[in-house]
C-alpha cells in the first residue's frame, strides 16, 4: 500500500503533505425490546490528504483511493486558495520521524467470532433485562466491534501502520409503572480489546434493570447547593468534559485572553489534585500509540499538585504556543483532519477511603454515573445516572434527575477530598468535538468530594 502513497507524496508541491488511509471492518448488533433492530456487517474505506502550501491548510477526503495523486493535487489547489487569505502562516512543531508497524494482540479476536455468536450473546443480555420485572417496558442493547487498519505517511518520512480494535457493549433499560413516567438506566463497557470484554456481563444486564426500577420510586432531587460526592464514573466524565476539553490548546492558541486564564503554574485545585492524559494504558479505548500526525503517545500532566502544568497539543498549536506536540492530534475517521483530543484522561488516586469521604458529609448528595455532560468553556453541566441523599454521613433514599452545574475553576477549587479508589473506565459512546463523534476515550477518577456544587431541580 505504501507504493501508491509514495508515488502520491512524491507528486506533492506543498511544503508539507500527509496521507492517511483507513479500512474499517465493523459488526453491529442492536436489540430494542424484543426486536433485533440492527444486524450489520460492513466494510468501509477511504482516505484523507492534508497539505500545507505557504502556510495554508488544504484538505481532501475521499472514498476511492485509486487516484491518490489526484487527491494530493486537489488538496494542494485548495491550500493555495487558502494561503492567499492568511494573515499568519501555519507552522508545525518538530517531531521525530517515525517508522513503525503496530498490530494489537487480542485474546479473542472479534473478527474471528461468528456474527451469530455476537447476536446470541446480546440477545441473552437483552432477555435478562426484559424478563427481570414486568415493569421493564423496553430495552436498548447494543454490541459493536470495529477494526481499523490505518496507514499514515508524510513528506518528512514518517511511515506508520497501526491497527486499532474497539469493542463495545451498551445496555439500556426503560421501566414504567402503570401511570408513572418512564425511567431509564444504562451501563456500557468499551475497550481496545477482544471479544472477552463483553462475555460474562450478566450482572451488568441485571444491574441496569434493577436501577431503572429503583428510579421508579426515587424522589426528584431538590435544587440547591450541596456537598456532592461523585463516584469514579461521574468524576471521570466530569474531569474529561469540564477540564480536559479546556486544556485542548486549539481552543485558545489564538486567543490571548483565554491564554491568560489558562496560565501555566496557576493554582486550580487542592495540592493533592493531579490530572493526567495518558496516551497508552494496555487495552484501553483511548489509546493512541501514534496520533494522526505520526506523533508518539505521551503521559501529560494537565494538573500537577493542584497547579496547571501543561496543555494538549497538535503540531500546529505546539508551534504557535512554543510547546511540544503531545500526541493528541486525533481524527475520528478518514473523513476528518486531526484536531486536539484527549486519550485516557483521569484524576490520580488520593488517600481517603470511601467511608472517610462519606462520613464527614452532614447533608449532601452521592451522584453516581453519567448520562452525559456538556461544557462551554468554564461552564459545565452533568446529568448523573442516579443519586442518593446523604444525611449525617449515611446514604439515604435514591434520587432521580440529578443535574450538576457550575464554573469549572470554582469547582476544582472546591474539591475537598480525593479517594484512594482510582478506576479508569472505558464506556460506550465517545467524545464529541467540532463534528467529530464518537471518538473512543477513557475517563477515570477515584471518588471525589466537592463542596458548594449547584444541583438543578425543581
Amino acid at each position, binding site marked *: 500500500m505504501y507504493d501508491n502513497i509514495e508515488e502520491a507524496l512524491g507528486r506533492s508541491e506543498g511544503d508539507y503533505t500527509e496521507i492517511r488511509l483507513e479500512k474499517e471492518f465493523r459488526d453491529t448488533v442492536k436489540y430494542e425490546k424484543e*426486536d433485533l*433492530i*440492527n*444486524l*450489520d*456487517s*460492513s*466494510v*468501509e*474505506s*477511504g482516505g484523507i490528504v492534508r497539505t500545507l502550501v505557504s502556510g*495554508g*491548510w488544504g484538505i*481532501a*477526503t*475521499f*472514498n*476511492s483511493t485509486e487516484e491518490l495523486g489526484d487527491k494530493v493535487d*486537489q*488538496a494542494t489547489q*485548495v491550500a493555495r*486558495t*487558502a494561503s492567499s*487569505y*492568511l494573515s499568519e502562516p501555519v507552522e508545525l512543531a518538530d517531531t521525530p520521524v517515525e517508522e513503525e508497524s503496530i498490530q494489537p494482540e487480542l485474546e479473542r479476536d472479534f473478527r474471528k467470532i461468528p*456474527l451469530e455468536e455476537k447476536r446470541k450473546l446480546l440477545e441473552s443480555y437483552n432477555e435478562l433485562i426484559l424478563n427481570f420485572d414486568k415493569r421493564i*417496558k*423496553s430495552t436498548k442493547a447494543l454490541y459493536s466491534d470495529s477494526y481499523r487498519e490505518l496507514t499514515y505517511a508524510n513528506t518528512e518520512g514518517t511511515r506508520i501502520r497501526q491497527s486499532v480494535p474497539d469493542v463495545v457493549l451498551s445496555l439500556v433499560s426503560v421501566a*414504567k409503572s402503570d401511570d408513572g*413516567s*418512564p425511567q*431509564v438506566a444504562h451501563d456500557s463497557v468499551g475497550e481496545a480489546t477482544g471479544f472477552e470484554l463483553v462475555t460474562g456481563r450478566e450482572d451488568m444486564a441485571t444491574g441496569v434493570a434493577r436501577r431503572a426500577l429503583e428510579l421508579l420510586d426515587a424522589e*426528584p432531587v431538590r*435544587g*440547591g*447547593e450541596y456537598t456532592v460526592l461523585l463516584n469514579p464514573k461521574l468524576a471521570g466524565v466530569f474531569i474529561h468534559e469540564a477540564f480536559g476539553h479546556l486544556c485542548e490548546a486549539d481552543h485558545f492558541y489564538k*486567543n490571548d*485572553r*483565554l491564554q491568560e*486564564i489558562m496560565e501555566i503554574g496557576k493554582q486550580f485545585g487542592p495540592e493533592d489534585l493531579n490530572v493526567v492524559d495518558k496516551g497508552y494504558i494496555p487495552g484501553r479505548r483511548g489509546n493512541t500509540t501514534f496520533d494522526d500526525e505520526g506523533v508518539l503517545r505521551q503521559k501529560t500532566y494537565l494538573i500537577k499538585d493542584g497547579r496547571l502544568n501543561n496543555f494538549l497539543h497538535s503540531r500546529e498549536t505546539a508551534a504557535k504556543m512554543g510547546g511540544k506536540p503531545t500526541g493528541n492530534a486525533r481524527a475520528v475517521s478518514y*473523513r476528518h*483532519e486531526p484536531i486536539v483530543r484527549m486519550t485516557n484522561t483521569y484524576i490520580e488516586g488520593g488517600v481517603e477511603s470511601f467511608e472517610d469521604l462519606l462520613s464527614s458529609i452532614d447533608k449532601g448528595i452521592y451522584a453516581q454515573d453519567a*448520562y*452525559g455532560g*456538556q461544557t*462551554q*468553556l468554564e*461552564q*459545565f*453541566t*452533568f*446529568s448523573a445516572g442516579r443519586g442518593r441523599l446523604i444525611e449525617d454521613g449515611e446514604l439515604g433514599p435514591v434520587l432521580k*434527575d440529578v*443535574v450538576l*452545574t457550575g*464554573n469549572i475553576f470554582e469547582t476544582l477549587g472546591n474539591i475537598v477530598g480525593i479517594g484512594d479508589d482510582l478506576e479508569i473506565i472505558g464506556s460506550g459512546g465517545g467524545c464529541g468535538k467540532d463534528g467529530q463523534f464518537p471518538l473512543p476515550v477513557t475517563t477515570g477518577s477515584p471518588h471525589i468530594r466537592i463542596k458548594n456544587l*449547584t444541583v*438543578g*431541580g*425543581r
Partner: protein
Amino acid sequence: MKLLEKASKRAKSAEVFQIESQSVPVKFTAGELESVKSYETSGAALRVIDEGQLGFSTGTDLGDGEEIVSRALETAGIGEEVQFSFPEPQKTGSSETFDGETARLSPEQIMEMGQRVIDEITEFDSELDVNVSLQRSSDRIRIANSNGLDLSERRSSISISVDVKLVGTEDIFSFYDSCQAASLGNLDVDGLLERIKQRLKWAGLRTKLPTGRYPVIFTPRGLTVLLLPLLTGFNGMNVYQGTSKLGDKKGKKVADSSFSLLDGGVFPDSPFNRNFDDEGVPTSEKKLLDEGVVNGFLYDVRSAYLAGEEPTGNGTKGGIRGGSDFRSQPDASPITVVIPPGDRSFGKIISDVDRGLLVDQVLGLGQGNVLSGEFSNNVSVGYRIEDGAISGRIKNTMIAGNVFDLLERDLVLASESQWVGGDLKAPAIAVDGLSVVQKD
C-alpha cells in the same frame, strides 16, 4: 442499478440506498482562516429480506458488489424475522431541492462570505473572538428497491455557523448561531448577523435573577429545550415500545390550544426540502399536535409495521439531524418541524412580563430522562426581564421542569417565526411558573 440486480438475484427482496456527496467546508478560527477542505463521499447501503429475514450491510468501495451482497445475505441468514416489505412506488412531490449555482460556489466565494461575517461582527466589537464554519454541499441520493421503486434527488445546501466568545477577566460569554439554505439567494445572513448583535447588546450588563418561579420566554433557538423531549413522545418506535408519554393520548388534548406542531419534508421557505425520506416514502406534511390535541405519530417502514400503522415518510438514516447517512439503518425521526406562530409580537410578550427570564441557549440539551419529559439545564445564554424590558445577562442559572406539564399551561406564542438550523421553524414561546435556580 447493478447492485440491486445482483442482490435481487440472491435475495427475495432488496433495497439500495446510494449517496454521493461533495462539499467544501471552510473554517475560520479566532477570526482567521484555518482550513479549506474538499470533501467527497460515495457510499451505499443494502437491505435484503431473504426467507423473511432482514439483512443489512454498507460499503464505500463497492467494486463488483460481491462483498456487500454476501455480507447482507450473511446477516439476513441470522437476522430478524420481519413481516414488512420495502415500500411500493408512490407518487412523490416534485419540489425543487437543488440549486446549481449554490452547488458550484467556489472556495473563494465561500471564504469571502465568511470574511464578511467576521468583519461585521468584529466591527461591532473588536474584542470578540469569532469562529465561523461555512459549508456548501451537494448530495445525489438514489433509492431503489425490488418492488420497482426507483427515486433520485439532488440536494444542495449552504450553511454558516458562528461561534462568538467574549472573554472577560471574571467571565466568559459565549454563544452560537447558524443559518442554512438550499440556495444562496435564500440564505439569511443579515438575519443571522442581526441576531448576533442583538444578543451582544442585551449581554452588556451582568445581572442575576433570584431563585424562584418565573415566566420564561424561550427564543426559537431556546425552544429546543422543550422540543427535544416532546418529539421523543411522537417517535413511532417509542409509541410501539410503550415508552412514549403520548403513546396512548391520540385524540386527547395535551397542550394549550394555541400550540400546534407540524412535521414534513417540504415547506415553502424551508432550507432543507426533500420529497421523500431515506426509504423512498413521500414526506407528507402532517399535524402531530392540532391545537394541542395529539393527532399522529412519526413512523418509518419498520416501526409502522410493528405498530400496525402506515409509514409517514419519516424513515431517516442517522438520527434526529439531517439523516441520509448511508451507514445507518433507517428509523423514525422528524424531518422538518414547524410550529405555527401566534398573534402577539415578541416585543409585546416581553413588555407583558414584570420579572422573568428569556432563554436562548442552554447546556445539557437532551441529557437526563428525555422520555419522561424532564429537563434540567444550565442557561448559557439567558437574559433577565424586569418591568417589561431586558435588563441584562444572567449566569450560573439552572432551569428545570417537565415539558408535558408545561405545555398544558397557558402558552403565549409570538407572531414572528424563525428558522433554527435547517429543520425547525418556530416562534418564541412564553410559559408561566418555571423553576429557576440561581447560584450566588
